[in-house]
């Protein structure tokens, strides 16, 4: 892979996201480095105390994402202690170990973290605490200096800083929420696309499997049964010309007839599984279908390209169901079946009859089953069947599942 400079910050962000304590620890160390001059305070015990305060502030920064509330609580306590005791506010001596340093920027960082990661209620309380603390600090500081101009500047600067930190954190929270919802939507869209793909696969595979079953029946059981019927026929004819034992001819005839009946049943079964004419396309298959309906059917098929086998099967079985409905229920005397290509390689099947009309989709009925079957490939079925007729059923299907 070639080096691509645009990816460097991305990778850095990714690393920082993956290792929050390490990344924040580095930031804490930088802040801690800003207060190294505290080590020069004497005596050594005071210097160590000051260093401890600053180290705790830096530690809070390191933990800002791991334990946001606890870390904020710690800096708040330290900050308030500094505000109260770090200045010669109340005439007493300032505690040297609690004098504010650059490392106090940790408070700003933690407020932003609180606003970014916690509910608004908590972060607003944090902001209020910070403003109160800064008020106390400024009071002590101004008490030492007694300058009105500096006082105003300090008030504006500190409250602006804390407010800005809060706003920054809060907007980060909003952005994150938005990002998460987008991510969720993206994931759900991906899941939907995935489902659609696997469903299409399942539908096509099931069509292919049915076709295979018919082929297996044809090459296997049907052939053997035909050969058996032929042999029984030969036995029957041979026996009938001779003085065979009593009853043999009757038995042979019976066996012969049973074999032929079974053959016919098996053929109907196989055709119901997958009409073999469908292998040659909708045109021959629908012609073969209308031949058996016993009523005048006009067939009009104009399609630009063959749809997938699963779609062809749905068109075929839909036409068969609607044709049967027209014959059985509607008492139609004429049926028109039209198949046309639609945009994007889809097909439209229209079955119109001059029967009694009033066709309804009822639970468990043929039309409901049809609608379900059409729905498996995101097709649509529209039934126009006023009482008294005529009935026009239109089914729109995509070119493949």
């Amino acid at each position, binding site marked *: 892979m070639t080096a691509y400079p645009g990816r460097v910050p991305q990778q850095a962000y990714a690393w920082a996201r993956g290792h929050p304590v390490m990344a924040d620890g580095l930031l804490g160390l930088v802040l801690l480095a800003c207060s190294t001059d505290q080590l020069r305070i004497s005596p050594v015990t005071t210097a160590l105390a000051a260093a401890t305060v600053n180290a705790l502030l830096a530690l809070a920064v390191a933990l800002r994402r791991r334990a946001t509330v606890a870390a904020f609580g710690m800096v708040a306590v330290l900050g308030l202690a500094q505000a109260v005791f770090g200045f010669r506010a109340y005439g007493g001596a300032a505690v040297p170990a609690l004098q504010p340093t650059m490392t106090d920027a940790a408070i700003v960082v933690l407020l932003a973290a609180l606003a970014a990661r916690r509910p608004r209620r908590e972060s607003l309380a944090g902001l209020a605490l910070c403003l109160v603390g800064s008020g106390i600090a400024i009071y002590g500081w101004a008490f030492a200096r007694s300058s009105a101009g500096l006082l105003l500047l300090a008030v504006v600067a500190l409250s602006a800083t804390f407010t800005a930190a809060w706003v920054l954190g809060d907007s980060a929270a909003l952005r994150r929420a938005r990002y998460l919802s987008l991510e969720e939507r993206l994931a759900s869209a991906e899941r939907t696309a995935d489902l659609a793909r696997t469903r299409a696969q399942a539908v096509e595979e099931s069509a292919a499997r049915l076709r295979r079953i018919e082929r297996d029946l044809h090459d296997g059981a049907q*052939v*053997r049964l*035909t050969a058996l019927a032929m042999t029984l026929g*030969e036995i029957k*004819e041979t026996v009938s010309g001779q003085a065979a034992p009593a009853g043999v001819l009757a038995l042979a005839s019976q066996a012969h007839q049973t074999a032929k009946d079974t053959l016919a049943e098996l053929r109907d079964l196989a055709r119901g599984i997958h009409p*073999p004419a469908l292998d040659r396309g909708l045109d*021959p298959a629908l012609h073969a279908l209308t031949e058996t309906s*016993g009523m005048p059917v006009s067939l009009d098929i104009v399609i630009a390209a063959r749809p997938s086998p699963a779609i062809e099967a749905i068109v075929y079985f839909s036409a068969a169901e609607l044709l049967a409905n027209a014959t059985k229920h509607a008492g139609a005397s004429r049926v028109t079946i039209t198949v046309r290509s639609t945009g994007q390689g889809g097909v439209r099947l229209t079955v119109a009859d001059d029967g009694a009309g009033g066709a309804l989709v009822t639970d468990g009925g043929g039309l409901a089953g049809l609608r379900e079957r059409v729905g498996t490939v995101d097709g649509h079925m529209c039934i126009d069947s006023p009482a008294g007729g005529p009935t026009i059923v239109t089914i729109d299907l995509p070119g493949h599942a």
Partner: protein
Amino acid sequence: MRIVIAEDAAIMRDGLAAILASRGHDVVAAVGDPDALLGAVTEHQPDVAVIDVRMPPTHTDEGLHAAAAIRRDFPGTGVLVFSQYIEAHAAASLLSAAPAGVGYLLKDRVADVSDFIDALTRVADGGTVLDPEVVARLLAAGRHRDALAELTPRERDVLALLAQGRSNAAIAATLFISPKVVEKHVASIFDKLGLAPSDNDNRRVLAAIRYLAT
């Protein structure tokens, strides 16, 4: 009869060959695909070829194409196509491409061995054989509904047998009536349907089939 069998299922091919041989016919070749069939017909010039519709490579309608090609290139060889499924449409188009010396039967018909061999003989003699089921579908399809409605039930029976390729004598035997009565019925049918009368059995069969199929 000298016969070539084209059927891709070995059990069926061998069984048929054995039965035909036992009835004294000469099965000169039994093959399993259209190319071998055309090769065998070219080599043996048989009286008739028995052809399964579904054969390799696509197992759809190879047999129909092979049958049409044989009728075109070998006038002395009749073709009897048999199919696991009846497609009247396919049968009618085969017959319109090659009207004589052609048969189309449901595969089950081999179970009635003598009838099957009778059909085979008629095809070998240049006659036409159409499965009763095909004829029934053509009659039910609704074409010429008004004209067919004018036929008496008896005339409809005669028309059905005629369209199956039966001769007058055979129709008479089947319906237990005299050939003279059959002759009368046929004349009446042709009159009602507006078909030109003919003395030739086969020509009448073809006229009847063509009328029903178009």
